């Protein structure tokens, strides 16, 4: 039977998880990524696969409760079993057929192998096993990987990337046939979540990164990030949105934007929606409304008009309320009297770490560097770096 991830977009990219393969969800410690494994399990359970879910950090009841919160009634499926590594640890009797106490790693090993042999899909919280059983348990985990390959079962592993020794990370990565990263959009705090394919060894794939939200019930839902393009009157916002977008529309009257610019772009695996705001002051409420929804801000300034910088700064403050990361596009660099980025930084009193990118929206120069800079802020540079080769194509 075909086993799939059940995660939006991911299944279009990797199609299926073949027999004997190990797929690891590589999860940022501050992100609720366990849902990915739960969703994969439930999807395949519904399709008729025999699935086992290993719990070690909480009781089987709590585990089932978590499934239920997402609307997944695992307990009603005969093909579903829980491997209870929790009860024995806290000294409670287990009422699961498969159970072991993690204080006895040999016992755990034996039970896990039995499960791997008997089930099509087995979910294992690899990092939690390491957390509870100690770092030496990685040897056992290695045996499970090998055993799954031998028995042609599929392992769906979660690995929460706490600061483990590098050897452990390498071992897990190298032993996984597929690694899906589940990360956070960091900006002082985490403002959003994304997942992306790091590695799949059974298929040649084009990288994808998808932002997601968790919906209860429902699970992982992909969504398209909204980027706000703002700036003073006549700075070149509409021109910028059109320059980077594959398709874009503007609602302009007499050359100025009266409603919104909207552009869509597919870039480095991201689907991005750009919203250009009107530059005139009477539109500030729209700006506020969008700020609450957006994930990042591009501030476009006319580099030849320092007299508009105070207004630009004021617009930044309006969105600063939402704590969003922002980059500055120093536009109209094709004109002879354009100020260089560092001059603009000084005049606008912008901190050192704010990226200011010289662009000419009219000529299309540097506009994607602005998107790069923002993606780098949003994904902690991981995504942009991993996908560098793609930039040239």
């Amino acid at each position: 039977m075909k086993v799939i991830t059940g995660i939006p977009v991911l299944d279009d990219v990797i199609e299926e998880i073949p027999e004997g393969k190990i797929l690891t969800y590589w999860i940022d410690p501050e992100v609720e990524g366990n849902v990915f494994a739960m969703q994969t399990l439930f999807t395949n359970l519904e399709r008729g696969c025999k699935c086992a879910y290993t719990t070690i950090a909480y009781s089987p009841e709590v585990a089932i409760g978590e499934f239920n919160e997402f609307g997944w009634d695992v307990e009603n499926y005969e093909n579903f079993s829980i491997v209870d590594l929790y009860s024995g640890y806290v000294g409670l009797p287990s009422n699961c057929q498969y159970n072991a106490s993690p204080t006895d790693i040999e016992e755990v090993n034996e039970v896990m192998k039995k499960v791997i042999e008997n089930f099509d899909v087995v979910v294992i919280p690899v990092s939690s096993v390491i957390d509870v059983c100690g770092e030496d348990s990685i040897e056992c985990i290695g045996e499970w990987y090998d055993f799954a390959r031998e028995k042609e079962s599929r392992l769906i592993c979660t690995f929460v990337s706490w600061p483990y020794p590098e050897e452990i990370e390498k071992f897990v990565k190298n032993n996984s046939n597929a690694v899906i990263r589940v990360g956070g959009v960091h900006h002082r705090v985490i403002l959003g979540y994304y997942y992306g394919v790091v590695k799949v060894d059974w298929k040649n794939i084009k990288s994808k990164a998808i932002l997601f939200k968790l919906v209860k019930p429902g699970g992982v839902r992909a969504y398209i990030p909204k980027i706000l393009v703002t700036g003073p009157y006549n700075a070149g916002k509409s021109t910028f949105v059109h320059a980077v977008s594959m398709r874009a529309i503007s609602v302009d009257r007499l050359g100025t934007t009266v409603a919104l610019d909207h552009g869509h772009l597919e870039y480095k695996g991201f689907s991005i929606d750009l919203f250009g705001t009107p530059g005139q002051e009477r539109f500030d409420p729209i700006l506020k409304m969008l700020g609450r929804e957006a994930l990042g801000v591009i501030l476009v300034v006319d580099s030849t008009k320092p007299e508009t910088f105070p207004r630009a700064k004021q617009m930044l403050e309006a969105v600063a309320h939402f704590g969003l990361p922002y980059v500055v596009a120093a536009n109209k660099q094709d004109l002879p009297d354009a100020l260089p980025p560092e001059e603009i930084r000084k005049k606008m009193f912008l901190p050192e770490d704010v990226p200011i990118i010289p662009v000419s929206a009219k000529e299309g120069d540097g506009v994607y560097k602005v998107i790069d800079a923002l993606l780098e802020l949003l994904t902690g540079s991981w995504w942009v770096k991993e996908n560098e080769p793609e930039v040239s194509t």
Partner: protein
Amino acid sequence: MPELSNDLSNITHQLTFTLNVIYDVYVIIIMNMSQVLPDVQLKKGSNIMVYGPAFTGKSMFVRSIFREFIRKGYGGIYVLTRDSAETLMEWLDIDYSNKYVKIIDCVTKSMVGNVKDSDSIKYETVMDLTGISAKISKFFEDFWRSGVRDIVVIFDSLSTLLMYMNLQTVFRFLHILTGRVKVAGSVAFYIVEDGMHDERTIATLKQLFNGVIEFKEENGKKYIRFVSSFTQTEWREIVVEENRVVVVV
């Protein structure tokens, strides 16, 4: 450090001798640090250990700190491993709709099974460090998006975590949490019980913190002081009252 102690005595003169004084003095220590000791940046982003034997008033102390911060307009995140959210809310005497208070209750779920999360109270189990970490992070995001930038985090207590999990695991968890507090420019207090852990554990944990508020008991009297690698206050005698800790003059 004559300047620092001068500052302190001035302030303590002006204020009444309640726990809040300690808190105020303490925050002022933090605030003044960069002037008095220019090479020390303790201000925002500090992670502080609250250490002492059982029944010396640590919980009361951090609760009072928490309440004070909330009154000052901070967003507060309280992680409970020993009391339920209900107990805390009762003590704080704060309305459940108060948007400045967020609680992670790691007690209720393991006692009564599944409980539904609300916007301000989330339930986790104490061994599920990933769950706790993700929920704390979610609260940070909630505050951030609603424009609240000053955030205080209380962790009561790390000793419970150490009962279930080895030091390495707890250390890794704290590494991430203290890092978040630092980057977000918040302040966090973590309770650790004296007498429950070996010296190596305490020494290892201390590496993660900017300072320690210590409690002790001697001849039936209780004392408090603040210690960091840069400064140390005198032991002050305290009395633990029903809902606050008071310094004896």
